[in-house]
């Protein structure tokens, strides 16, 4: 039975949204031309914001560090363009709030090239030096969370990592950035994987790819040197296959205990984009100054997969794609299941932004909410086996403390519950409200 389950490469529960990837999955990655204005928020990763080390009026080169880490769980920023620092001040962020950022005006006459070929002798580096180098390269998790990559690499004493798991599931509908990266840069992916594997001291690298990308599975497999400690594992197409704990369950048939991290089951999970960024830095000397973004959705004139310099306003990206179609109602950064809506086209592309999705009336129409009929579909969708129906009811009554007994903090907000609810109850949104309230409380006796 167990062997049979392992053949299925699956986790329990989850949902099957239409994947909508036809729009962009066959479009090669293009480079967006350089524009004029760039905004680099200091807090575009999870953790402590970076500290600016340039001043207004200073000339900066593309790839030059402009902000240093503000602490250990923090990372650095680099200028995406050659140009002049215009201002260090508050700019509107994705969530609509103003936050400190560095504004840079590109030099219209600069060639905007990065000194190519300056590879770094990573093999000679110690573990600590390597971790610091990753932090100095500004590399974060590129799948969407933007968690500083070096923090995951710092494994405490006594813990060993057996496997490096590379996440190529891309289970969010519409997004095709990891798919295209795997198709177009399999060498870089495998190079980066080898660097990471060696520095983690892991025995093998495993690349998990959803089975709806057979071309990616084939190309990556073809590039693996015979005898190399890398294998590709095709995964069942199901959302959220790319959630790291789900993927560990699918690939290794192990549940990461609640409240613990993948390293507690001897696995380190990294996104395909992160691994390519590692290769670009250590083999080609390029810090994280640009990323691949899928621009898609029913409201985009010409959908595309683009290399976008960080800090580029969404406005320029959308303009490059032929502009917005009439009837555009909402723009989301990230995927349609977990992405964040943006309030303004002036918001810049950030390190964790895998997609710019433009939706029209059809997806955003107000849905009549009906009472919960306890049908249990959310229970059968929740990959963490929570009871979303109960959690939503408690949240509606503002009984947030009672929700802790129903393990509300195990929720990763994947949105399967809201997706599956026939009564259109915004379940995950209600859970988010409660989590937010609970985590911002001051404990009186703490």
């Amino acid at each position: 039975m167990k062997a049979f389950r392992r053949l299925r490469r699956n986790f329990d529960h989850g949902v099957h949204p239409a994947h909508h990837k036809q729009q962009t999955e066959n479009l090669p990655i293009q480079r967006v031309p350089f524009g004029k204005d760039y905004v680099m928020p200091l807090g575009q990763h999870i953790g402590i914001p970076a500290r600016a080390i340039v001043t207004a009026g200073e000339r900066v080169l593309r790839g030059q560090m402009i902000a240093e880490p503000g602490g250990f769980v923090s990372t650095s920023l680099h200028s995406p363009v050659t140009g002049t620092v215009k201002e260090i001040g508050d700019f509107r962020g994705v969530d609509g709030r103003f936050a400190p950022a560095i504004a840079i005006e590109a030099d219209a006459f600069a060639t905007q090239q990065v000194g190519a070929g300056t590879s770094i002798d990573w093999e000679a580096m110690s573990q600590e030096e390597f971790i610091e180098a990753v932090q100095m390269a500004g590399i974060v998790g590129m799948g969407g969370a933007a968690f500083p990559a070096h923090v995951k690499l710092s494994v405490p004493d006594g813990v060993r990592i057996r496997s490096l798991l590379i996440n190529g599931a891309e289970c969010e509908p519409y997004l095709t950035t990891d798919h295209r990266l795997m198709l177009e840069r399999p060498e870089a992916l495998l190079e980066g994987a080898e660097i990471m594997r060696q520095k983690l001291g892991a025995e093998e690298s495993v690349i998990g790819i959803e089975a709806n990308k057979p071309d990616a599975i084939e190309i990556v497999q073809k590039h693996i040197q015979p005898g190399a400690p890398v294998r590709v594992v095709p995964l069942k197409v199901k959302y959220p296959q790319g959630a790291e704990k789900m993927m560990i369950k699918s690939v290794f048939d192990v549940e990461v205990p609640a409240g613990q991290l993948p390293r507690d089951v001897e696995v380190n999970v990294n996104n395909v984009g992160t691994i390519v960024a590692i290769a670009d830095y250590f083999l080609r000397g390029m810090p994280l100054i640009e990323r691949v973004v899928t621009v898609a959705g029913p409201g985009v004139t010409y959908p595309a997969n683009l290399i976008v310099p960080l800090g580029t306003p969404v406005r320029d990206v959308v303009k490059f794609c032929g502009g917005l179609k009439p009837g555009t109602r909402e723009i989301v950064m990230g995927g349609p299941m977990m992405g964040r809506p943006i309030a303004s086209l002036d918001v810049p592309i950030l390190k964790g932004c895998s997609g710019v999705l433009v939706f029209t009336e059809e997806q955003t129409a107000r849905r009549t909410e009906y009472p919960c009929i306890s049908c249990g579909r959310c229970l059968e969708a929740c990959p963490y086996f929570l009871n979303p129906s109960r959690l939503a009811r408690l949240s509606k009554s503002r009984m947030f403390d009672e929700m802790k007994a129903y393990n509300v903090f195990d929720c990763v907000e994947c949105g399967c519950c809201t997706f599956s609810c026939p009564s259109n109850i915004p379940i995950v949104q209600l859970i988010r409200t409660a989590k937010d309230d609970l985590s911002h409380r001051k404990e009186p006796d703490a």
Partner: protein
Amino acid sequence: MKKRDPDLLLAHAPLLRQGMTTPSVMRDVLIALAPATAASMWFFGLSAILILGACIGGAVAAEWLFADKQARGDSLRDASGILTGLLLGLTLPPGLPLWMAFLGGFVGIALGKVIWGGLGHNLFNPALLGRAFLLATFPIAMTTWVPAVGDGGFLQIYPSNLALPFMQAQIDAMSAATPLGLMKFEQEVTPLANLMFGKITGSLGETSGLLLLLGGVYLWLRRDLDWRIPVSILLTVVVFSAVLGLFDAERFPTPLFSVFSGGLLLGAIYMATDPVTSPVTPKGTWIFGIGTGVLVMLIRVFGGLPEGVMYAILLMNAATPLIDRYTQPRVFGRGGDTK
């Protein structure tokens, strides 16, 4: 001057939904019941149409009367009132006076649903509550069964249908016994083929087992139905009667007779599965189904009544919150078995 940007909404992810909504689920159940409803009209003629219409009318009237003025449209549009009326009607004897049917539908919604706070909040299945009310209030009319339309043809109406409110209903002499009654009180077995195709005496909807099963399959294919509940109820009944058969095959009903007689299929497929009044957890639905099956058999075989589906489901409805509380799913990464 910048070109005007579109006004952007900030609706939170996920923006995608599966296509099913609560009203569409209710509509699917109505579609699934259509063959059995048509069969009831075939067997009982105009009387069936009148009784079903009176029940639906009573249910919708209560729904409309007690709804908030603003929410009136929504609570009628979700079709749950119509469904309650139809389900109640299918459990009634064909000769029931129409005013009683209307009252049953009205009370089912009023006391079975509205008073609890509306759709989603009720403890008991409204249709069965309406039926329980009728059985307690009009025991004679509710247990007088008439045979299916004979020579009179489709347009025949049972005279008792038209009895005036609060007048002594004219219970005619044409009464007959249901297969379960025959079994219990006269030890007479009805042939299985009659049970399946409907040539029996009984309530409007319980005459044709096969058509009810057909609707159940449709609901299962449309993913509108928690298959665990009917499967566990029917399996329990089969096992229970098989075990009884080992003791005394003459005295106790055969498994197939148990499944196809009375309101078991109607109850197991369409009433016990009411999501509101059945447990939400997968483990809980098994307990609920097995409990219902056991109670049905206990009441039928050892109780004073020939039929026990209604009380079995209502009793298990009452136990549902408790079942839910003790069958919370195991959380991912917190040990134990996956189920």
